[in-house]
């Protein structure tokens, strides 16, 4: 008679009860997701600002050959990394059981980033 195969059911696993998979790791993950979304939003907003206002474009021209794209992307990366560091420090030891709002806010921020980079939006807002 064959021995039945051992079934491993992971559907009921609870990270809070499983020390090998600490729930706090989710806090780190959400901080990375939210910070990346913030970086995207900043990139979109700065892109719009450089398209609409000439002085902002000149201010963000960190590299003459690359134009204001250099400043827009450098600042976005810096904001992204700064927000990530701050949120990671605050959320790394949290279980983050109510993460729905983080996901919703992250998706909204990414949408801001996508819309900000879409040229017809700048044209609509009065760009050149």
């Amino acid at each position, binding site marked *: 008679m064959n021995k039945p195969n051992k079934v*491993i*059911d*992971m*559907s009921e*696993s*609870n*990270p809070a009860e*499983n020390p*090998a*998979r*600490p729930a706090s*790791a*989710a806090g*780190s*993950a*959400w901080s*990375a*997701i939210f*910070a*990346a979304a913030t*970086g*995207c939003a900043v*990139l*979109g907003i700065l*892109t719009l600002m450089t*398209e609409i206002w000439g002085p902002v474009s000149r201010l963000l021209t960190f*590299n003459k*050959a*690359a*134009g204001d*794209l*250099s400043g*827009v*992307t450098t600042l*976005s*990366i810096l904001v*992204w990394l700064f927000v990530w560091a701050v949120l990671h420090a605050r959320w790394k030891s949290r279980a983050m059981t109510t*993460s*729905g709002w983080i*996901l919703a806010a*992250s*998706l909204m921020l*990414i949408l801001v*980033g*996508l819309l*900000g*980079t*879409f*040229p*017809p939006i*700048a044209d609509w807002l009065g760009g050149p």
Partner: protein
Amino acid sequence: MTLTDREIWTAAHGMVLGAGFLLLFSGTLVGLWILRPNWLTPSGARVVARLSAAAAWGMALLAFAAVLAGTYVIYPWYRAKPPPNATPDALGEASPSLSHYPKFLLLSRPETSGWHEFGMEWKEHVAWLAPILATAVAYCLTRLGAGLVDHPRVRRALLVILTISFFCAAVAGALGALINKAAPTK
């Protein structure tokens, strides 16, 4: 059969870095998709998580290399200002060609100006979203590993973010190929 330095950089930017990113996306997507309870044994989940994390870090590195090369090496060639007397078609020494100034070549004709005003303007910015989002996915895959099976909401969020990252890279890649066809950087 020769390529100029500019053509080599452009090909590496699009066909090596960009295409590599798109290929690694497939592996990361499959890994994230199957990291769920009941689908994998614990040891299988660990292997899949490790492979997915490696693929995601590959995506992030290639995307950063692509946007940095695009912004600081190729884009300056694309947007370089031509001599004031340059025209779309060379008319001898008195009037050099715009063919080495892709941005101004595109803008010189109403039927091609959209490639710059819409195509390049969107491409140069939206491409930068891809490495930022890919890095978040890679970090989460590394941090949580096989533990992602216990965090279905994080896993679903990563699937969405990974797809948006792919969308951004695909838009940038497709527009880049079309713009380079209309006005090659050479």
